[in-house]
């Protein structure tokens, strides 16, 4: 077995551990009101032991891959996103040891599972570094930024729990609506994983020629049935689905197709879940949060932001500027990825000020934490996929 495949197996073990640990955390918070907290403690303890075991395996994946590649495994979308998932678990472990809350694990681990699954949909081979990426500042920058983001993400987990418990789901309200939208969005990520996996298993491939926005003739291979065709496309593979709509040259129809399939699969999965559960996802999850202490969730949310904010600043702004200065000769260039890091940072600064000076505690603060996480994920997914800039090598 090569080091690379050992590394892959370690990641798989970690993934399985996180799945199992989720069930134990679920068990820990499920106990009825009359049961003693001993039950909770026991299940919670098993849960955290399995989580830590998984995390160690995850770290081992990271280290072995680093050794195999000769550079830190944060250089393409798969590696970076996986590292983010790993650090999310690490941040959860940190918070668990401060606050001893299995409930956070019940929500943080599935989040990490989805993120790692999402990551593994991208090409997983080890890529050699292009010259611009050969910099230890880049390694430091990416690892610190991901760590900061993962700690900030814990505040969204606490916020989500807060909202699930606090929002009255029996009455129609804006809050109820948006909470369900958040749930639906999470399911869409699962939809992406499901659609990509389906077509990967089918080995689907269809090649088209097209004309790009600089009027050059190019070729492109889709890995899913083309819903949208590229500008002036011509089908090169036989027996494949013919695109329903042709798009103008500035649209990357392949990515648009991927997004659309994720939407379709995600919506179907969401629909099935609704049919099986016979209630909204928020209503399904609400009972798990029944024993949540809102005050504590609020506190954890704030604490995670105040721990994560300095780390994020250091990683996503300061180290990023040092690297940009060395690689691109300017520490700041208003590149979309840079701008979105700045937006994320300003958003959390606004969060802290609203909380400290305008007294935005509790539910408002919880919503802000969830929005912050959405911005982080936007930066991670959408800016990489949609808005292309210097950073979009992957």
């Amino acid at each position: 077995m090569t080091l690379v495949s050992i590394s892959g197996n370690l990641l798989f073990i970690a993934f399985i551990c996180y799945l199992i640990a989720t069930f134990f955390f679920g068990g820990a918070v499920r106990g009825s009101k009359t049961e003693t907290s001993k039950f909770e403690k026991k299940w919670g303890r098993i849960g955290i032991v399995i989580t830590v075991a998984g995390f160690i395996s995850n770290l081992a994946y990271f280290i072995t891959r680093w050794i195999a590649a000769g550079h830190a495994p944060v250089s393409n979308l798969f590696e970076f996103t996986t590292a983010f998932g790993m650090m999310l678990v690490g941040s959860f472990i940190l918070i668990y040891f401060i606050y001893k809350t299995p409930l956070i694990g019940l929500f943080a681990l599935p989040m990490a599972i989805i993120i790692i699954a999402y990551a593994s949909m991208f090409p997983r081979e080890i890529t050699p570094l292009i010259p611009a990426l050969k910099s230890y500042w880049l390694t430091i920058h990416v690892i610190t930024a991901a760590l900061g983001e993962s700690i900030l993400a814990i505040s969204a987990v606490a916020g989500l729990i807060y909202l699930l418990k606090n929002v009255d789901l029996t009455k129609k309200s804006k809050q109820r609506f948006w909470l369900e939208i958040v749930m639906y969005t999470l399911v869409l990520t699962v939809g992406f994983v499901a659609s990509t996996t389906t077509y990967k298993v089918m080995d689907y491939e269809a090649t088209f020629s097209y004309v790009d926005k600089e009027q050059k003739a190019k070729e492109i291979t889709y890995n899913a049935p083309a819903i949208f065709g590229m500008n002036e496309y011509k089908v090169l593979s036989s027996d494949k689905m013919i695109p329903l709509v042709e798009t103008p040259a500035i649209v990357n129809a392949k990515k648009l197709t991927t997004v659309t399939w994720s939407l379709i699969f995600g919506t179907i999965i969401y629909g099935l879940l609704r049919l099986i559960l016979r209630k909204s996802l928020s209503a399904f999850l609400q009972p798990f949060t029944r024993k949540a202490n809102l005050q504590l969730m609020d506190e954890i949310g704030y604490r995670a932001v105040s721990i994560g904010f300095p780390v994020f600043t250091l990683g996503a702004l300061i180290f990023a500027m040092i690297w940009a200065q060395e690689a691109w000769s300017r520490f700041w260039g208003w590149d979309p990825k840079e701008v979105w890091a700045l937006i994320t940072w300003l958003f959390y600064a606004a969060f802290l000020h609203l909380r400290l000076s305008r007294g935005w505690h509790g539910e408002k603060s919880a919503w802000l934490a969830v929005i912050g996480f959405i911005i982080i994920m936007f930066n991670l997914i959408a800016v990489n996929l949609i808005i292309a800039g210097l950073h979009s090598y992957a």
Partner: protein
Amino acid sequence: MNNIICACGHENPEGTVLCGNCGRPLTEEAENSKLVDMRYEGSARRSQTYNKTIIDKIWNFFSSVKVGITIILMIIVAAAIGTILPQVLYVPATTEADIAAYYERVYGTFGKIYNDLGLSDLFGSWWFQTLIGMLGISLVIASLDRVIPLYKSLKKQRIKRHESFMKRQRIFATGEDILGEDSFNISERKLKELRYKVKREDGALLAEKGRFSRWGPYVNHIGLIIFLFGVMLRALPGFYVDETMWIREGETRAIPEAPGYYLESKEFILETYENNQSNEVFSEAIDRVGTIVSNYQTNVVLFKNQENALPGQIDNLQQVKESSIQVNKPLKFDGYSVFQMDFRLNELKTMHFNLSNKSTGETLGALAIDLVNPEPLYDLGNGSSVELKGYYPDFSGFENGEPQTKSPVPNNPAFLVKMYTPNTPEGETSFVAIKQTVEPLGVNAYKLEFQNVETRDVSGLTIRKDESLWVLAIGGLIFMIGVAQGSYWNHRRIWLHKTNDGRLIVAAHTNKNWFGVKKELDIVTEVAHLPQYIDQHDLESEEFKKDGEKSS
């Protein structure tokens, strides 16, 4: 000024909410609220006190956090809009007309509107810069408005506070004094173990730690201001150099904006990952993507002019160092950095011709034309020579019979030559371009026969000097110190009083992380048998406690 005199006899400046001495609420609002608002210790702030002159009004405007947050949100929205389409900087066009055409061609009507509104250069626009400026002003004023009164009131804190102050703290306890005098001694010992600074006076105890963390936000704001100041410095002449230069292999050129310095390019190197044994782990990626570049590099020699040399005099250069410039590894000297930014491969360097007789094919001699510095006359010996009458490095066709050149770069060189041989002493005129010969003045007996061409690579380098970097670095460092100081430490205080009727009252406050202070108070409560506190904010968990069930 209308000072407020508290029941304890202390005189407080106008605008004070909590008496600086005993902590009694001084306003009706504070009196009626269940918990005191401990921000800035209830001290008087300028912005809350004066509102008469225009200066007061400006001050009050910018000191408001609401305004600060609004500015931040406006910057967020603007910045997000600025990422919808690429900014002009990243667009392959330079003139205004080209840029406008580019946006319209590639992005259609939306692109046109985007560019017309100036959103394509949003980050350089006056209004965006104004927003940043307002953020800076707001930072300064809001900080000054708060830090001074906060400093004063934390400095002159009394140990003994009024019961009405204690009762309105979020964490509060009252009850029987079980250990008598010992409850103070034991508490003090335990608190000191927990690294509190403990002060005592008759029947009162104040334990405090982490006060310096209160200065965190102000320190980080100072860091931000220094950073913004550094950014502004770059507008000053001489602080900031940003130049590009193209240098060909073998050339020596003056480095722009770096007087006295010259750079010679020895070689440009482009390397890719080979799909071989040593790169086995990468083979899958190389197979999928194709070529992946591993290195862009220019090997250079840096020279400096002699002290007393005239500007432009380059015959007596002194070598400073030999070096290689790679992406991520700039050449650094004397505050300048030279970066590997771009390249052109295989630019034509020298063209080789033979002068030959068209009918016999006999060759009279060879000549090599340097395409950057062509000579006016090439003497081939034995009475033959070629005179260069015109040189068109980037030939683009004829206009009114005149050959034209698009640029000074030798992409498509063409020559107007006069050829002299012993048989044609008057000379014959010929126009020679790649794959094309024109004989404008009648048929010639001789021709220039193209032999081969030498090429070389050109490196695109960027020269930077940024005297403001250290200001930015200091700003960043101070920001990090401040933000860590305010985030990783908290200001915790615990008050312990004995009332006149012999009860104990306990109160605690922290600026953040209540969980932490409660855990410490739990320890002290247990060893000193203090009355059990309640968290007046978290009545839910109090209920849970009563149910005998621990919350998750």
